[in-house]
Every structure is written in C-alpha cells, then in structure tokens.
C-alpha cells in the first residue's frame, strides 16, 4: 500500500483568492480570543505565524486582511477539493480541516507510476492556484505527518520512506501534549528513537494508546479508513472578499466554477440543462436564480454567456457576498433533452419547485414573493416581501402588531384637503436614524370629505400626507 497525503496550509485563503486577487497579506482567524489559524505566504514573510494572537499579527502587519474561519465553512471548502480530486483518484479520505488522503498504490498502473501521479496532481493544484504540501507514505499517518512538515518530494522507495518518518521530530508527531512532555523528559527527540523502544515497555511505561498510535504510524497495526463518497450533484461555492455590488463583479469569480463544472460534466460524460445559482447577501435572504439552457450543454463558455445575459437583465437586489452553483440534473449525452431520466424522484415538492423556478425564470427574481412582518417601527419597513422558501428568521407576532391600515401606499401622497373628522390621538414615530432614512412623523386616523378613512401623518417639516387607507 502506498498513501499520498495533501496538506493545505492555507486552504481558506486560497479559496478566497480564487474570486478576488487581493494583494494584501491575509490571515484566517478563529476563536473567541482570536488566534491566527491560516497564513498566506505574504503574511508569513512578514512574521505572522499560525497560532499567533491576532493582536500580535496586526502589530506586525497593520493592514492585514482578516477573514473569520469557521469549521463548517472550512469543511465545505475541503469537500469541494475532494470533488475535483475524485476525478483523479477514487479512494479519498477527508481529514478535516485541512487534509486529503489518497490511496496511491492502486493508481500506479493508471498513471504509469507514482511520479507521474504526483506530477498530474501538482499540475491540477497549480491550475486551481491551490497550495498543498504532498507526501507519500507507507501508512496513512506516516504520509500525513510528513506532508504537514512542508513541501516535499515524491518518494516511493520503502526504505527511504521508512527513514523519512523515523527522522521526523517528535514535536511533529501529533502526540498528546502529555505524552510529548514525557518523551522529551526521556531525552527522545525523533520518532525513530521511539520506534526502537521495545513495544511492551512503551505500552507499560507510557500508555497502550501511545503504542497503538506509534504502531499505526509504522503500519504494525491496522488503521482502517473511511473513504469519501462523492455527492450525486455538483456544488461549488465562491466567497467574495469584497462584496460585489454589480453583476459585472460576479462574472470573474464565476469562471473557475464554470470551468470546474465543465470538467465535471466531461468526466461524468453527461450534460445538463438547468443551473441553480445562489447569491448570498449580508443582511437579507439569498437570491435564487434558476437558469435553463436551450438544450443539453456542458461548455463553460455557454453557461457563462447565459448567466451574463440573465444578470444584465436583472440587476442585483443587494451586494453579493458569496455565490454558489448547483447542478442536480444530469442528462446523458445521447439522450433527448428535457425529460427526467435521472436525478431525484419527482414529488409534489419538486413540482412546486419546478413551477416556482419556471415562473421566476420567466418573470425574473423578486417578481414572486410573499408578505411578512418585519420588526421595525417605520411603517414602510414594518413589512417586507420575502421569497417563497421557508423562512428561518423569527417573525414578529401578529397580535403584537400596532394598528395599521391594510392598504399602505407605496409612497405617501400629499393631503389635498382638510379632513372632516379626527378619529385618534397622535401616534409619534421617530426611528431609523441609523440608515439615513429617518422617519419623524405624527400619525392620525381621520375621515376625509369623501368618507374615506385615511391614515395621515404630519412630518417634521409640517407637511401633511396620506400614508394609507383603512377599510
């Protein structure tokens, strides 16, 4: 058996760079007392290191670009790498948060040797502008430990592989801190010295678990691996470092995803005719775009053109933070287009989804919405149209809503004539100073000469307006 391990020292940063060429030094930080979790090479040159406090890092590089790292996001990005790597190797193990393990022995014949495989992977990484430190090893753990040390060279010769792991410093062996401390106190510095201790003594004096761990590194104890199963659909996401305010800004980051999709379809030997694009915004729900091609398609260029036209027709409703492309419908290349031969079982939900997506595709985003109350004192902001997907945000209780007319005018109309009767005390609304749309008004319910029941207000400048009608 031969294993190959890919360690991504700054995967999240590579991922972010795909969408935006940031010249500045970048780090990913995590934890409540922010610590540096990933460092780009530029920041590293200036002295920033993994594990450093953010405060120290900022002292070293004051204009450091900081990105929050969370586990879920990191794992999603790692899985995204597994998806393309799957085209090169069938047996992949995810080692979150930053590693992928491949079974390489069985690939020798396919690629004509391990160096060739190594070369192919290097090239694939380079195309995607990813940094990964690779290493081969006789066991999964040996490959992992060596890979994490830094960029390595391809090696397949047994003895040299063994020598390489034996020479590894104990500090790099991912031992528990307590075990590490004990071994240091024994004067041991390298893994090889540990290998030479009698197994029984090692288990007795340290812990059986330690022996087991050491034996797994050496391959003297089985170390079963759970291989990754690729999902049936295609899904890739790009996170934007700077929010894109215009559709134009989305096209560049879309390129690599579409190239990935083309490669994926090529590998599947299939086409698709439906793309689903999700645009995430900071403070509102994501926009969903469903696109249909005229017929089965697999070329990135064709997809790109379709998306470009669509984005030009429907300007963005809000700045975009991230975009994701999902394809669930795959068509065999020789099959007639348009019929559901593959994919999930269509049910009612699916039918509903199809209807909505068709309507949306026809009418455009935002044309299809439902009403929902919003917690805001300003009447024009106290409701909003939301997309038709189930909401997750808590809704304001209807019973706690203040008295408001059912028909709220899109824009307040100047009051032309004095009302004939005043039916309420003033209600004062003064809110919204924070977003430049401050409202300062006294509202009244009054009856107009026409007999209509109007919701009137006087604004801070003294002007009178009708804002709605009561039934």
């Amino acid at each position, binding site marked *: 058996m031969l294993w190959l391990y890919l360690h991504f020292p700054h995967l999240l940063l590579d991922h972010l760079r795909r969408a935006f060429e940031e010249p500045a030094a970048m780090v990913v*930080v995590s934890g409540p007392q*922010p610590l540096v979790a990933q460092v780009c090479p530029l920041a590293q040159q*200036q*002295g920033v*290191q993994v594990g450093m406090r*953010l*405060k*120290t890092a*900022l*002292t*070293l590089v*004051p204009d*450091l670009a*900081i*990105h*929050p790292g969370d586990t879920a996001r990191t794992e999603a990005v790692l899985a995204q790498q597994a998806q393309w790597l799957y085209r090169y190797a069938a047996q992949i193990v995810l080692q979150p948060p930053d590693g992928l393990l491949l079974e390489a022995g069985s690939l020798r014949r396919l690629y004509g040797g391990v160096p060739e495989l190594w070369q192919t992977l290097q090239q694939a990484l380079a195309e995607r502008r990813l940094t990964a430190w690779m290493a081969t090893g006789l066991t999964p753990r040996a490959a992992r430990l060596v890979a994490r040390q830094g960029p390595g060279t391809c090696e397949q010769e047994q003895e040299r592989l063994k020598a390489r792991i034996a020479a590894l410093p104990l*500090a790099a062996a991912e031992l528990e801190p307590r075990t590490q*401390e*004990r071994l*240091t*106190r*024994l*004067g*041991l510095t390298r893994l090889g010295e540990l290998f030479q*201790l*009698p197994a*029984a*003594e090692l*288990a*007795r*004096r*340290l*812990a*059986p*678990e330690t022996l*087991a761990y050491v034996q797994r590194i050496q391959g003297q104890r089985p170390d079963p691996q759970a291989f990754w199963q690729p999902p049936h659909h295609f899904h890739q996401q790009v996170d934007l470092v700077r929010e894109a305010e215009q559709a134009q800004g989305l096209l560049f980051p879309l390129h690599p995803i579409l190239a990935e999709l083309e490669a994926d379809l090529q590998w599947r030997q299939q086409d698709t005719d439906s793309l689903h694009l999700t645009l995430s915004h900071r*403070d509102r729900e994501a926009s969903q775009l469903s696109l249909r091609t005229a017929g089965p398609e697999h070329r990135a260029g064709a997809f790109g053109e379709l998306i470009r036209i669509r984005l030009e027709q429907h300007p963005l409703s809000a700045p975009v933070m991230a975009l994701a492309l999902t394809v669930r419908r795959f068509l065999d290349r020789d099959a007639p287009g348009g019929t559901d031969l593959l994919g999930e079982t269509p049910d009612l939900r699916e039918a509903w989804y199809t209807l909505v997506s068709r309507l949306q595709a026809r009418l455009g985003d935002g044309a299809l919405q439902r009403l929902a109350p*919003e*917690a*805001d*004192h300003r009447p024009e902001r106290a409701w909003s149209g939301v997309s038709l997907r189930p909401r997750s945000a808590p809704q*304001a209780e209807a*019973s*706690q809503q*203040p*008295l408001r007319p059912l028909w709220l005018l899109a824009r307040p109309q100047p009051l032309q004539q004095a009302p004939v009767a005043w039916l*309420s*005390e*003033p*209600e*004062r*609304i*003064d*809110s919204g*100073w*924070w*977003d*430049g749309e401050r409202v300062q008004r*006294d509202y009244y319910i009054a009856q107009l000469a026409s007999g209509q029941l109007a919701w009137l207000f006087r604004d801070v400048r003294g002007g009178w307006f009708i804002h709605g009608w009561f039934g």
Partner: protein
Amino acid sequence: MDYAELTCFSNFTFLTGASHPHELAERATALGYRALAITDECSVAGIPRAWAALRDSPVTLITGSYFVLADAPEAAARPRFFLLAQNRTGYGQLCQLITTGRRQADKGKYHLPVADVEDHALDHCLCLWSPPTADEADLEAALACGRWLQACFPGRCWLAASRTLEAGEAQQLERTHTLAERLSWPVVATGQVHMHARECQPLQDVLTAIRHNTSVEHAGSALFQNGERYLRPQPVLQRLFPAQWLRETLNIAERCCFDPGSLRYEYPSDLVPHGQTPAAYLQHLTAEGERRRFPNGTPLSVQALIHKELALISELHYEHYFLTLHDIVTFARSRDILCQGRGSAANSAVCYCLGITEVDPTQVELLFERFISKDRDEPPDIDVDFEHERREEVIQYIYQRYGRDRAALAATVIRYRPRSAIRDVGKALGFDPALVEQFLNGIDWRDKNTHWRQQILDKNLTRNPRIADQFFTLVGRIMGFPRHLSQHVGGFVISAGPLSELVPVENAAMAERTVIQWDKDDLESLGLMKVDVLALGMLSAIRKALALISQQKGRPFGLPDIEREDPRVYEMLQAGDSIGVFQVESRAQMNMLPRLRPERYYDLVIQVAIVRPGPIQGDMVHPYLKRRARKEPVTYPNDEVRQVLERTLGVPIFQEQAIKLAMVAAGFSAGEADRLRRAMAAWKSDGDLTGFRDKLIQGMLARGHSEDFAERLYKQICGFGGYGFPESHAASFALLVYISAWLKRHHPAAFYCGLLNSQPMGFYSPSQLVQDARRHDVAVLPIEVNHSAWDHTLEGPGPEQKLRLGFRLVRGLSRDAGERLCQHRPDEGYRSATELRQRTGLAQRDLEALAGAGALAPFSDNRHQAYWQLLGHEREAGLLLGEAPEEYRSDTLVTLPEPSEGQSILADYASQGLTLQRHPLALLREQGHLKHCFNAQQLLAAEPGRPVQVAGLVTGRQRPGSAAGVTFVTLEDETGNINVVVWLATAQRQRKPLLTARLLHVKGTIEREGDIIHVMAGKLNDLSHLIENLNVRSRDFQ
C-alpha cells in the same frame, strides 16, 4: 402650573438610561421642575451624583427605585412599580428591599418575588404602579395585581400614566381610567424618562441594542418607537395630561422629603470601652503608643504635633475612623502580618503612635504640615497596605468583627473607556467585528497628540462620512457611561447599624464578597468614610526576609532593628543595583537612580514619584536633575512659591505641589483647587481638564510667570490625571524602598529568599532574581528531594548561608504533594524512588514532575534513566480493551543516553523556569554562534560611540508613553542584562525580529551617560532557531 417628574432612569440603570444623573438634574433645573425623582431599576447608585448636581438647585431630589417582580400574586399580572422614599426611614426600607433583591441574584441582577415585598416593611414608601397593557394581561389580572399592591401599600398607591405617543396608547389610557375607577386610586402623570433630551434617542437605541446583544438595525421592536422619553418642557406636558394628574405629581413630591445629604456616617462605637468618650480613648491609645515609640520621652515638637492633630480629629469627629484603623492594624500585628499606612492623614504623629505608619515624624517633619484639611470638607484618606498573601485574613477579621450586615466593600463603577466604547458602538451599528478589532489595534493609545478619533480617520478605515460622524458622536457620548458595578480593590465601609439601611448591598463576582452600590467618589461627596485594606507583595517579601534573619541570628529581628540612613544602602542604589528593590526596580527607575543619586530618605520619596507620567509629561525631570547636580541655580519667583517648592528645589514633582501651585501661582481659590483635584482623579474615565487650562495659564501669566512654565505645569497636571502620585503615598513607599534595599545590601540571601517565596510579584521572574542573587555572591542550590522544602530556604550557619530552591518552583507539582514529601522524609533522606512512593503515596503525576525537575538526582545520575524507571511503575488501568496485561510484561533492559548539557538546560527551563547550570547564552557562545558579540560585562568597559554586537534572550519589550516611538528591549546573557534602544524607524523596518524574536542579535552603537549604558540598535537579527525549545518568559509592553 408646576410639575415633578417621578419616574426617571439614569444611566445607572445600565444600558437603559441614556443620560448621566447630573445631565438629568441640570435639565430638570432648566425646565423649572419642582422635583425630580431618580428611579433606577433596583438601585440607588445614581443618587449621590444627582444629589451633588442638585445641591444648589431649587429642584428637589426624590430618591426612588423601579422594580419588576420575579413572579406574580395569584391570578394577577406581574407587578412592576416605582417606589419613592418619603423620609429617612422610607429610604432605609427601600435600601433594604433592594439589598434583598440583589443578594438573591448573581452579580448585576436582582430577584424579588412577591413574597419578599410582602415581608418587608415599606410603610414609608409610596408606590407608583405601571399597569400591564391589554396585550400583557386582561383586566381581571390587572385588577388583581392592583389589589395586591393596595394591600402592600394601603393609601399610598397611584396609577402611573404616561403619554409617550406610541401605538396603543389610547387603549392603555382607557385601561388606566378603568383601573383608577375600579380601585379608587388617583392617577399621576409620569414621563417614564430615559434621557434628559430627545437628542439622546440614538444613544438610547444603541444602548438597547447593546443590551440585547444585537445591532440597532436588527433590534426591531426592542427599540422605543420614538424619542418621547425625555424631560419634556412643561407646556408640552400640560397639553398631554389632565391638570389633575399633573397636580398629583406635586402632591406626591410634597410627601417625599428625604434628603441624601442628611445621611450621616454612623461609625461603629464598638471599639470604645464602656464609659469612655471616643476622644479620651483615642488620646489614651496615642499616649500608649508614644511611650513605645519614644521610650526616652517624646520630643517637644512631636508632642505639640500630637496635640494639634488630636484637637483637629475631635473637632471633625473623626475619632472612630482612627480607632477603626488602629483596631485593624493591631489585629494584623497580633497575627504578625506586616502593614503600612499611606495617604495624607497617614503621615501624622498620631498615626505613627498608633502604629498605622512607620514614617517617623522626627525624621521628616516636612510632610506633617498637611494632615487633614479643615477648610475642605474632605474625609481623611488613609490606605493601609498588608502582605498580599495574608490580606484575606484581615478582610475576614473585618467581616467577623463587624458582621456582614455592617461591613461591605465599596463599589467601583466600571465605565465605558475608548476601547469598550468603540467595540460596543461598532457592534450596535452593525460593523464587522474584525474591522472594529482592526480599528482598535491601529490606534496608538499612548499618542495623546493626535486624538484616537483623528487616528481612525487618518487610517481611512471608514469612507462613509455620515456613518463615521454617527459613530464618533455616539462613541463620544457613551464614553464614561457606567457599565456595571465591580468591587473596589479594598475600600471597606463599616457602619454602626445595618449597612443596608444606609446603602443597598449587592453581590460581587467573587463568592462571599458583597459590595455597596456607591463608589469612592459617591462616598466622598456624601462625606462618608471608608477604610482601604490593600495588598502589597513587597510587605510579604520583607516579612519573610525578616523571619529568615531572625532565624539566622537566633533572636527576633524586626523593622525597628533596621539601621536608618545607612550610606552603604544609598551607594548601592546610586549604582542602579536595584533588582528586586521595591518601586525602583523597573528599567526606567534603574536608569534614574544613577542620575538622581539618592543620599537620604527624602531623595527616595522624590525618586519614587519622579518616574511617572506627571513629572515626565510636565518636563520637570531634567530641570530637577540639573538643579540637584548644581548645574542650574535654584530660584523662586516669590516666597509663596518658595514655600510650595522648596523641598523639591523649585521644581514641582508631586501632585500636591501642582495643586498648591495652581493656588499660589495662578490664583485658584480653595474650592477651584479642590475641583481641579477631583477632575484630575476622574480624568481617566470621564473628566476633562481643558476647562482649567485657560484659567491656569492666564492666572500664571498675570502673576508674572513665564508662559513656558505655565504650559508645562498644565501638561504635568494632565499627566497626573489618573496616575496621580501624591507625596503622602510616596513617603510611605520610600520607606519600603529603603527597607528592601537595606535587606538586599546586608542580607542578600534572606532578601532573595523572601522575594522568591512571595512570587508572583514585582517586575522580575524567578529566573532573573536567581541570576541576580548569584551575581551578588549568593550560593544557590538546586531543588533536591532530600533537602528542599516547599518554599525556598536558607541552608547552613552564619552569614554564608546558601539559598536552597524549593518545590514551589516545580511546574505541575501540587503544594499538597510537596508538603507531604517533606513531612514523611526520614532523617537520612529517601533512598529510592520506590521508597519515596511508598512513604508518601505521591501520585504518579507529582513524581514525574519531580523527576522532570531533576529533583530525584540522588537516586540516579542519568535524569533520563531515572524518569524511565519512574514510568515503569505498574499501573492497573489503562490497557486497551481485549488485550491481556501479560502482553506488556517484559524486562528488556533499555538504556537511555545521558542528557547533554543543552538538554539539561532545556529540561530545567521547562520544569522550573530557570536553570542553575550554565546560561544558554554561555553554551551558544562556546559553540561559536555568537562570534564578535560583547556580553553585558564587556559592555561596561567598552568606549561610547563604538559599533558593537550583542545578543541575548529577550526578557522585556517596552514602549514607554514618555518616549515617543522608542522601544526598549532588555536582553539577558550569562553575565547580566543589556539595554537596547530601538528608534521608531528602525523598529518599523524590522518589526518581525523586534516583535517575535526570543533570542535577539543586535548590531548597534554604544551610548553612555554616566553609569548608564545603552546599545542603540541598528540591525536586528532573530536567532530564535538556536533555542528552539527553550521556555523563557518575556515581559512585553506591560
């Protein structure tokens, strides 16, 4: 028409009220209100400030509080109401209720169930009920709640009506009418005030968002619908409320006649024996002390002083205060706890006789002119420092002596500072937290010249000017707002009756600690006294050193046995040899010593006070040094100034002098000077001194002083702000400086031993102290299982005692294990690890810690082998499931290599933070890594100006506020410490080595001033890779 506002929250209802108490008070005055009630939620913390602001106003202050109960009476809505104190009794009842509620909840919260209100006597409080809205409860439940209140406050209930013009108000008014009719209660107009002016609404929204941990944009209905909860002009109120409701406010106000100013400190009289007056008893104790202090008769001058002081104490009725201090100090002495008082009143002949201070009035009479100021109504100020490890005993004594109901700690109001203000407002405005952190980090807080706000703009961190303006305005407004109450470091308030009738008591974060709701400024403004019980590490060290000397001499040796004004002690200090000496051991102090060259006690008083922001920012250090070195004549503009400045050669050094100068040189009145003093004390949190600037400078110019001198004095006053260091404190500290220096000079082994046994304290790590001890010819012996104790000890007879390191240094060893080891140790010592294990039953972990520290050396020469054997001990558990123990049984002989010198050194550092073997730098030098490098010793002889290379472990990085842009780095090698100075430009070019290197190589030039040697850094080089695993602590930017 007239109006009294009866419901008003100040910002002491934390994160709710949007105005300071004084702002509310001033606005109420301007609007011509008859009265203003401050009704913070379950608190009277804002009362003293409101009282102080209304002292000269026609507006009457009413004391009240707002409560939301934790549960509801049967079938009733949950009661929420305001209580107003009618008189002193009612105030006491209110405080008691607040105390009950606060004591039943965690710090900062309260919990008051219905039953508690029923149980408390509240017959001198009035109740204003905020009835539930229709959404909250139906009419029946509301009525039930009203009837319950009626039963609790018969004839003293009102319905609080409000007109905030919000949605649903009409229904609520209708309900109020109905309830008033059904219950036959009067209705009273209230403002539900949260801010003094409508303009504070954005701030109130921001506070609400912070309280709900969200942003204003997402706070939604948690925000108020409008900004009507402010102190509204009376015409507006007349339009909104029926006249009868407004008149009712006055009826209520008339019934509330409690004045916080009438609170008197009822000091405990327990201490005075039956049948004696406090004055006679104090006189008696003083006379007793006199006989002890002056066995050969009290000098006449001191007698006169005592007489004068006692008369003053009697006149101001401060006897109980001094008696209390005497009692506490006497307790400490009976337990052998070292203590020392400081503060203006502490440096008095009476305090000397009572044993509160050791500062001898015959030696430094200069200090005793300022005792207690009769003119200013300022309570005496005495802080007493105790040994830091034993202060808790003193605190427990106080609790036990007076009971928990009569003694509690003063509060410290934690306020918004720039950092927290920016963070919280940023969050409330929905800024990206990472961006905010970056903001904060980019700000140079020390740079007082460009205000931080300007710095943020300079850094171009926000581009939207509207948002930037909002942000800055809000940050500026929220700064100084109270956030929560914390406990004062040691200020006790002790009262005659239950404390909770004087001021509410609440829980502190620490278990078993309680704090009152007022801080020291509040106590001061109400004229109440507190006793400061503080902790000081140096006192522990001194007491331990004295005990060791007593042991060595075979007779008790105490503070009075220390010879005063010994020239050899001053010689040592003049050479800057002061590591470990109290107060003067920092690098800055160490550099000042050879320049100031202290020769007598009073020089030390100056030395302690001069290396501080006040004198440094006022640029007073150089003039003083020049005059002291007689390079500049000592002159005075006039006699008045001479009186103030004579003892410091015409240069103001102390805070007292700066204030006195404001009076004699700038014409400040006593009252103005007092306000200046208070402003200086508060400057750090919310004060502003710019108001005094013009007056000071104009006043000085008018009296013929130079503009330069006036500007410098102003700067100095700013520098004192927040870091004030008065002469009265310096005087007490200087005494401890002398004592610790004397110990270091004459009994170094005992000195370092005492110091090491009091860690953590002071400026230096045990490693640095041990190295310094060895440089002073103290032999230091390693930790050893058969010789060490838990603490460090002195071995051998006579003056040649050796310092034996104790188990307390061993990382990971429990104190219990260390003590057990000593207790079971046979006379001939343990012979093997097995015996050690059997006799003591020590846990494997502890044994491993000992072996790791090399303490088991008697059992094996090879540290590694000894550890291996220790690990071989049979353990029962820990086998993998399904594997028989036999599989692991074998007796293969394993021989581990002897540790190398480098490995041993590393192991020492890892296990105890220091090594007695060669210094790592000696090893590196031998291995040829540090060619061409001077060591610290060689630097002493090197000529100034020449290029030089040095290298050392980085033990400190500092960027003092007084030296703009300069970073001081301290390097340690095998011969001593090297001071490196890095200029801003050099630092910016070489941030990486400067900030991250643990072993630093420096190319630079030597600079020399007298005995002080610096290396001015040019090229920095990080050599940390040479000491990969060495665990050395650096003290960075503290």
